């Protein structure tokens, strides 16, 4: 697997898109920090970007890479290599190079800035960790979609729909159901619904840092123990891990059954 990972990673690192992605984040980081000179504001803007853009890029890159590397995959399949190694290697290659672009792109400006002022470093590392998780999750989801759809256009369509659903539509439905059932106790439901969407989950993790004052204004005991203690942080990271592991397992399982 490591060899495949190496080749996929190497292949991607040489592709134009990795640089575009890297330079985009680099520019963003520098603009936010050095032109704005306000770390708190930068972190908020970055959060908005990370929870919307990172999943989108992960999804599109994942699907694109899968379809584009079909030849490579077929070449590898005839070699004495385990199937799961091929797909896992490619998956980690894509997710790894995307994560690296993200972490380096945003990390470099922050490290340069952080040498001057280090109090926002914790918030910032958290953002990067969340970004890395979202990349892993959405690349895995997109690989799953691509693996299940021979048709490129269809695969792309489903992947973008998935992103649109998780990034926007889900929250709309979520809000409507909360308003519709407002007479009932909803704190368990709302936390549960948050867990089922990796984007919401990541947002919650950031809220724990940025908006703890507002979150603690709510009466429910479940909310209190979730947001008021480190329980929320712990559960959220656990769920993010599950969100990464389950699609990867499905990827292994599906790849074993697929014909080429």
């Amino acid at each position, binding site marked *: 697997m490591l060899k495949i990972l190496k080749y996929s990673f190497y292949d991607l690192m040489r592709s134009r898109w990795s640089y575009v992605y890297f330079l985009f984040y680099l520019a963003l980081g520098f603009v936010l920090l050095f032109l704005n000179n*306000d770390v*708190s*504001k930068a972190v*908020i803007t970055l*959060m*908005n970007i990370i*929870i*919307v853009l990172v999943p989108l890029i992960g999804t599109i890159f994942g699907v694109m890479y899968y379809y584009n590397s079909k030849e490579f995959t077929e070449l590898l399949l005839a070699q004495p290599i385990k199937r799961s190694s091929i797909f896992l290697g490619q998956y980690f290659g894509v997710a790894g190079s995307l994560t690296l672009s993200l972490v380096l792109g945003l990390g470099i400006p922050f490290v340069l800035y952080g040498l001057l002022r280090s109090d926002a470093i914790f918030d910032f590392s958290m953002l990067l960790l969340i970004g890395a998780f979202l990349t892993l999750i959405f690349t895995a989801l997109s690989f799953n979609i691509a693996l299940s759809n021979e048709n490129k256009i269809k695969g792309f369509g489903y992947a973008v729909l998935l992103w649109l659903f998780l*990034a*926007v*539509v889900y*929250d*709309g439905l*979520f*809000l409507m159901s*909360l*308003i519709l059932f*407002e007479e009932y106790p*909803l*704190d368990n*439901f*709302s*936390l549960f619904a*948050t867990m089922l969407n990796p984007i*919401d989950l990541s*947002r*919650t993790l*950031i*809220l724990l840092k*940025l*908006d*703890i*004052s*507002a*979150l*603690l*204004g*709510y*009466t*429910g005991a479940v*909310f209190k123990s979730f947001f008021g203690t480190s329980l929320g942080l712990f559960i959220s990271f656990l769920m993010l891990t599950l969100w990464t592991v389950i699609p990867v397992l499905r990827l292994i399982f599906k790849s074993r059954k697929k014909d080429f």
Partner: protein
Amino acid sequence: MAKTITVCNHCDITSIKEAISLAADFDTLLIKKGTYKEYNILIDKPLTIKGEQYPVVDGEKKGEIIRVASDHVTIDGLFVINVGVSYTSDYAAIRVVKSENFVIQNVVLEKLFFGIYLEKSSNGKVYHNKIIGEAKDEYNSGNGIQLWYSKNIEVDRNIVQGTRDGIYLEFSDNITINNNTSTNNLRYGLHFMFSNHDVYTNNTFENNGAGVAVMFSKHIKMYNNTFRKNWGTAAYGMLLKEINDAEIKGNTFEENTIGINIEGSNRINYHNNHFIQNGWAIKVLGACYTNSFKNNNFLYNSFDISYNSKLNDNTFSSNYWSGYTGYDLNKDGVGDVPYRPVKLFSYIVNRTPETIVLLRSLFMDVIDFSEKVSPVFTPDNLLDDAPLMKKIE
């Protein structure tokens, strides 16, 4: 000529009570280091009682410890502990009754019920005391410093923590409260009831049950105070209830669930305050008229302003809002588009509190944006038409 009477555990005079009975007016009682198990000490003549190296006056939880019932009394440098707890009378470590020109300073109070209780007294000074309570429930705890029907009193540089209300004023006018630190109190850090023409400046209120409450009072000036980390369901930096003609300037509200909660308060000027990372910087409930919000910084609050009605009679202008996304083409430092500080989402959260988990979601941003473009639910005249482009330092 005034003389000095020395009290210590192996002197001729070993008790404070005895010393007081022997003393003449304007004498000084010098209490040496040691422990004095006494309570119901009545000071009924003008005396200076001075502790040397913090002698301990232990009330053994039997009731009130020191009562001042004379003008011109100074209490300085005592360590008073173990006030009796009662459900029928408000036992205090030091109670001043109907007296004038008193000074209570450098006193440390621990294991108390009420700390310093000023009753119908005036022209006094409560200076540099440290009051450390262990209050757990409101019903069996007392206030750190309480003023009741008292006038012209200076409360300065005290530290109050772990009591019910840190500082409590009822029917007390012309009081000056400066440089105090009131933290970790069960209810309020500072509490005004029916008290007028008072001033409090440079105080710090942190992590109290509900911050500072100013109720049913007029002409209160609140300058340069810091309100921090008052977290919880009904917690706020400051609560204003039925307050008229007040001045709130130069204060910092940081990381409170609600920065200022305003109910039925009119003609108040909010100028040059800093609202930083609060859940709600300002929550306006009920009818509030002719308030002015000017030159304030609103930085990274989850919600800047929340209203529960569609009416607005307050003015917002020349504030800095970190959420402002407009531009300044003529470079005069004032944004060219007005800022609407009330988000639709704050209405939704007021209605269905659980929706708070959707804070900062893309969907909410879209909804807030459409409301910003054409207000339907929020008062359409509620806007800052001259938002500043740069933070006020």
